[in-house]
């Protein structure tokens, strides 16, 4: 059933919890691999370049941030394909497009849980994703 699994993470602690659930699901459904997706928002580009010098160093830092999640998946005996996208129109839009274009069986999301004010201004990424992704979505709190 859930053979083609997409795990979308932002690199926070919630990502690790989402990764654990993705691994459980993969072992239940006998999937051999998990696709890992990380989307960089436009404003994140700005602060990352500012803090890490240039685009190359920023990319390296992002891969470092994803390494523990990759490690977790690999230690469970699964292979992992990591993709970092630059969400020019917003994180949710990029996740939705990637998930729909590649016809995943399930999308697993880690939810960061913003405060009410933050959600009001930024909007909820998980909400937008759940609304527009065709595949079933598992949101891990």
């Amino acid at each position: 059933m859930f053979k083609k699994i997409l795990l979308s993470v932002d690199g926070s602690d919630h990502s690790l919890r989402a990764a654990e659930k993705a691994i459980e699901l993969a072992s239940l459904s006998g999937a051999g691999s998990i696709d890992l997706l990380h989307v960089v928002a436009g404003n994140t580009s700005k602060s990352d370049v500012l803090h890490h010098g240039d685009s190359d160093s920023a990319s390296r830092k992002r891969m470092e941030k994803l390494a523990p999640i990759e490690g977790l998946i690999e230690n469970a005996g699964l292979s992992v394909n990591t993709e970092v996208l630059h969400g020019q129109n917003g994180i949710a839009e990029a996740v939705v497009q990637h998930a729909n274009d590649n016809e995943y069986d399930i999308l697993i999301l880690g939810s960061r849980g913003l405060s009410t004010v933050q959600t009001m201004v930024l909007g909820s990424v998980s909400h937008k994703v759940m609304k527009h992704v065709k595949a079933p979505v598992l949101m891990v709190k």
Partner: protein
Amino acid sequence: MNTLAQTKHEWFHNVRGDIIAGVVVALALIPEAIAFSIIAGVDPMVGLYASFSIALVISIVGGRPGMISGATGAMALLMITLVAEHGLEYLLAATILTGILQLIFGILKLSSFMKFIPRSVMIGFVNALAILIFTSQLQHFVDETWIMYALVALTLAIIYLLPRLTNAVPSTLVAIIIVTAIALIMNTGVRTVGDMGALPDTLPVFLIPSIPLTFETLAIIFPYALALTVVGLLESLLTASIVDDMTDTESDKNKESRGQGIANITTGFFGGMAGCAMIGQSVINVKSGGSGRLSSFSAAVTLMFLILVLGNLVVQIPMAALAGVMIMVSIGTFDWQSLMNIHRIPKTDATVMVVTVSTVVYTHDLAIGVLAGVVLSAIFFAWKVSKVEVDKSFADNGTKAVYAVEGQLFFASVTDFLEKIDYSDKINEAVIDVTHSHLWDDSAIGALDKIETKFEQQNIKVSYKGLNRESSKLKEEIGGLSKASGH
């Protein structure tokens, strides 16, 4: 890909996206160009001409397709004194000189020198810029009624809340239209753009600034041009890196420096103020789907068209709406992450950041702030690497002392190093082991010469161990010289 094919790709790979993004950017550029003119103390047309001309020229000669350049706050803030003391013509001359300096910088391929500007200085730079843009708006609140505050609050509310409903139109533009309409209908009598100066009703024309071509003129404009050059390139290359990251492509930083130079030279001759790349507008452009040269071109043409057609309406915009937009710009410019991380980064980095910001806020000059930050970073660096460890041990029944040196030997560390050498030991031979050290300069060689001299005065033989190739080369070249000259 050959040059022609690449040029074609850079212009036309994304025609629809670029044209639409350009229109969105033009709408967002108008209020900023006017507000930055007002900060600099010139008529709004100077900033509008600049944004048109710079965006147009950069679309052709820039090194980073998809990046938007125009009149900016960072540059406007550097011009205030020049405009106040000498007037517009000197500003135009300074703009041309800035362009020439940037062009030279690009031709000499000096963009790699940007690596000497530490990240904490760059973060200080954008934070200081944000603070100055914010404080420059406070003058508009002086002697104003509650209506001003209410309109600014309304502007900000629309800017931040509208994107929750739709992203089809830029929220800054909607805010300006609504607030202008309210001010007109209610006849509030608040100050408007029209009160701040004239708007253009013609296309810019070529003019040579009417200034005396003397050394005295050069002496007036040169310091300003130099500061504008540094700040303009700093912000442009930072923005180029951000666009590189957002679009996951690379760009030619030296070409961009040359392009900024050509754009400023052209702009100065067409009556515009010096400008540079704009972080906020470039992010808006990429987010709106722009990525090619056509996006900047489309923004320039749309901007000029709107000004010529809608000039009469633009003068009705209340200053309150522009102040709201500038407050949004300053909030967006500030790097909030640096505040949240300040307790986690090294204390020296945090100090450099704070000193850069404070220097700018005190002097109102971003260039001086950057200089202070770079100098302080260099001092901290020298201080950190100037720690030398010297480990003394005895061999051959105590007749030989071995000093194992660990660390960098240079002007800042030799004093410490020399204090750790003991000349009162009863020995026949002293060995300086520099296997884990490196001799960097004249002071390091001078220190070794001094040790030799002092030991030799007591008939103690001095030898070295583990001199690496560069160090021994340096010692051969200048060693003994300083000893002979009696140091």
